[in-house]
């Protein structure tokens, strides 16, 4: 029996607005507990919500970046359930008229582009944070629970994909692409480790060829992209095993246990999912007129899909275009500058996504403060192309430029890395080496062409490594053959 996994991802994105969704409290990660609170986000008697306009603008931006339709008249609903970190014991959310709907996100997986449908993106408020004190930090064994309402009321965008994803690898790629997009729009810190972006997966399997969906299971508590992939993989396997054993998959929510590498069933009470949605009477409907929508659209930065297309058109392959597209904006800007300064696209992109990115990571530097201009990159590429530095020396030159030592040409000279590519200069050294190594020459002439490597090495030694090895090889081969 061949099984097809069917996966949908639900993403919660905390918006990095200055103030909360329905009150003026600051949105601030890591503040002292219960310091960014007020009657509204604490659910005090008599408090009322007022919609944060900036948050609405930003959810529209997210929706437009995902090619969604923006609803003309959108409404908030109360989602009613009791929980200690939900101050009003209802969450102001959206039910049937979300701000955005019917879009898509293109994701590159193994070199191919897969389109994942976006069902909706809606606006809601985040809850407070519960810290369970006791063994394991989970509610079952807790002796007490600490409640911090700093997060309560933070604007939260929930993005729901269609069940178009077909593998754990694809799920991960979708999550990463969405995170990059949201981060690039500037609407969220989108840090998994801080909880400003959170992923839940809905996983089901069905026999290949069947159109009816299998029973879906919701997976929560995946705190890294890797654990997302592992969890989805595990769940697919688990469900297949259940079904192949003749059992049925139970529709439930399961908790990913990173340490054990398994999903656990979460004991949820029956009937707890009737949220008794009704229109929020404390807020008026939002009119998202078309001129506002166009204003938001006009303010969007270049989106990853367009950018990727542009890179491919410039001569990069799909894979390199994707990697570059996902690179920090500052580095992409260097690429554009370099190409404008005449550099060929592929080497420029390779330098940026390779050595420069590695340097940034090593130095834990801020990409925006990287001291490399497009012109300098273009110069470096040209130098390698014309052979004035070897490719290994070029890496050192780059380091020097990044360290602020000057332009590539200057650095090559000051660090004595200029490659000798002058044929006449090298010819004499080649002659000398041939003269000094008659046995090697003899070996070569009797068919051991590999020995030329040794001779190249000798020339390199004689020139303190500054000879252009390709040229040396060429000259040696000529001399030995001729």
């Amino acid at each position: 029996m061949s099984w097809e996994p069917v996966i949908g991802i639900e993403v919660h994105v905390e918006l990095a607005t200055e103030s909360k969704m329905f009150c003026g409290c600051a949105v601030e990660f890591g503040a002292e507990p219960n310091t960014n609170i007020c009657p509204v986000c604490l659910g005090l008697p008599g408090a009322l919500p007022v919609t944060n306009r900036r948050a609405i603008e930003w959810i529209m931006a997210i929706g437009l970046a995902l090619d969604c339709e923006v609803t003309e008249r959108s409404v908030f609903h109360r989602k009613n359930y009791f929980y200690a970190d939900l101050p009003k014991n209802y969450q102001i959310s959206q039910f049937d008229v979300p701000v955005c709907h019917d879009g898509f996100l293109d994701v590159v997986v193994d070199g191919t582009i897969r389109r994942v449908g976006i069902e909706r993106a809606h606006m809601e408020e985040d809850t407070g944070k519960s810290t369970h004190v006791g063994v394991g930090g989970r509610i079952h064994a807790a002796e007490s629970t600490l409640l911090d309402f700093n997060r309560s009321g933070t604007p939260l965008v929930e993005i729901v994909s269609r069940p178009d994803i077909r593998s754990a690898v694809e799920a991960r790629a979708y999550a990463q692409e969405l995170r990059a997009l949201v981060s690039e729009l500037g609407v969220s810190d989108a840090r998994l480790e801080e909880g400003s972006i959170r992923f839940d997966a809905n996983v089901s399997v069905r026999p290949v060829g069947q159109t009816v969906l299998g029973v879906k299971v919701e997976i929560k508590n995946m705190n890294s992209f890797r654990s997302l992939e592992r969890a989805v993989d595990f769940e697919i396997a688990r469900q297949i095993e259940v079904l192949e054993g003749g059992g049925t998959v139970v529709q439930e929510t399961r908790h990913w246990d990173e340490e054990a590498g398994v999903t656990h069933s979460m004991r949820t009470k029956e009937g707890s999912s009737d949220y008794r949605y009704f229109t929020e009477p404390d807020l008026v409907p939002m009119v998202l007129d078309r001129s506002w929508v166009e204003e938001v659209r006009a303010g969007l930065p270049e989106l990853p899909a367009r950018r990727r297309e542009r890179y491919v058109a410039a001569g990069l392959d799909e894979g390199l275009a994707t990697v570059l597209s996902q690179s920090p904006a500052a580095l992409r800007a260097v690429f554009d500058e370099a190409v404008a300064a005449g550099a060929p696209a592929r080497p420029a992109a390779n330098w940026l996504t390779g050595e420069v990115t590695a340097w940034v990571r090593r130095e834990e530097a801020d990409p925006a403060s990287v001291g490399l201009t497009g012109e300098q990159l273009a110069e470096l590429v040209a130098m390698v192309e014309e052979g004035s530095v070897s490719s290994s020396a070029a890496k050192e030159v780059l380091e020097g430029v990044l360290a602020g030592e000057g332009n590539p040409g200057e650095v090559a000279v000051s660090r004595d890395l200029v490659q000798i590519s002058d044929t006449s200069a090298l010819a004499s050294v080649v002659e000398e080496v041939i003269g000094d190594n008659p046995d090697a020459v003899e070996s070569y002439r009797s068919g051991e062409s590999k020995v030329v490597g040794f001779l190249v090495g000798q020339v390199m030694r004689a020139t303190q490594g500054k000879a252009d090895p390709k040229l040396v090889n060429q000259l040696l081969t000529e001399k030995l053959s001729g």
Partner: protein
Amino acid sequence: MSIPNLTVVEAGELLRSGEISAVELLDAVLDRAHRTEAQLHAYLTIDREGAHAAAAEADSEMAAGDDRGPLHGIPVALKDNMCTRGVETTAASQILAGYRPPYDATVVAKLRAAGAVIVGKTNLDEFAMGSSTENSAYGSSYNPWDISRVPGGSSGGSAAAVAAGSALVALGSDTGGSIRQPAALTGIVGLKPTYGTVSRYGLIAFASSLDQIGPLSHSVTDAALTLGVIWGHDPRDATSYAGEYPDLTADLDEGVAGMRIGVVTELSGEGYEPAVEQAVSAMVGRLGDAGAEVVELSLPTFDIALSAYYLIAPAEASANLARFDGIRYGHRAPGASTEALMARTRAEGFGPEVTRRVLLGTYALSAGYYDAFYGQAQKVRAAIRDDFARAYSQVDALVSPTSPTVAFRAGDRVDDPLSMYLSDICTIPSNLSGDPAISVPIGLDDQGLPIGFQVMAPALGEPTMFRVAAEVERLAGFTARPEPAEVAR
């Protein structure tokens, strides 16, 4: 001249002429309260210190020429569902026993800015759910006209205080008639303004789409002046009206000549006491004599308004009262789990009527029942709005009794919730439509109990409403006051 029996306008004149100081005014009012509270129990909290400080400040401000308007130095009572910073606010519930809000409701801030002297917090039906103030978790309030009878509800405490003279004016809240009905039963003026014109920020919510704060007073002019102080756009309330607010007192003395007035036919007949119907009918006749064109109008949706209300209000209330869970403030019962803690807290903290309505509201919103109950009620509400719109295309104002009966005896209706709900049959329609309405006292029945006359007007039609109300007041010439009951209970 009995100082506690002064109107706001009269007191204001004496304050400005220097014949009386704000402190003296306050002391007279506090003395009246002292003498009557044992019988009436209008107040839950009297803030002597805060009131004296405010009165003293009003005196020095006035002396320095700083005149803050009609409520400057005037003793005002507040229904205890309005948040007052640092002063216990209970909504007459055990679940908020000892709760001191860290902020003032917007209307409270406005009163303070207007130099009003806040005497204290008055009794109400728990969470404003009721029509007699018998649902208070802190004991009932009684009617100054007959202390064996209810003052009406849910703003019964505010009504009793004003009627007795232990405040010159008070604020109440009206969700289904909770200002107008007690005003009618205690022989004073009470009004519900256009929905959205008075901020709900700081009003402990009962039904968000219906609640409105309004004044209770001894005269139409007092009510208009008070409304002028408390109304206005509030950015903290997203349902607050942001357009232009009309001039409230411009047409007050214009009279009704040339106006078209509609008598609602549905608001009469079975269940209406003959004395009430006769008094209202007589007043309608006099309005006609005074130059108004009077017609009878049928608004058929009024017959289903009560049912729609008793689905919408409890539904919204069930969500609004969910926050009372013992976690962050108020009463907290012990529990082995969070769920047990919450359940026990609410079981202990909520009274029977509140429990009834929360359950009813939760049920009306449940999966499978939403369409039949809450969904349907909203459709009825839309139909009621249409009915009003049709009526106002034919008349300028609508009139009716405020309450089908005069004040009933304490204990008479507590065991029959539905009979209690029928008290609001005249007042509920304008809560559902969001339009303004006022009750004006027009006389006493032969038991000596007050009868109230209701005037309704279209949205933002307060000037029209006041104009008719002022004429009713003039025609009625009702100036009687209850004898201050000084008999110890």
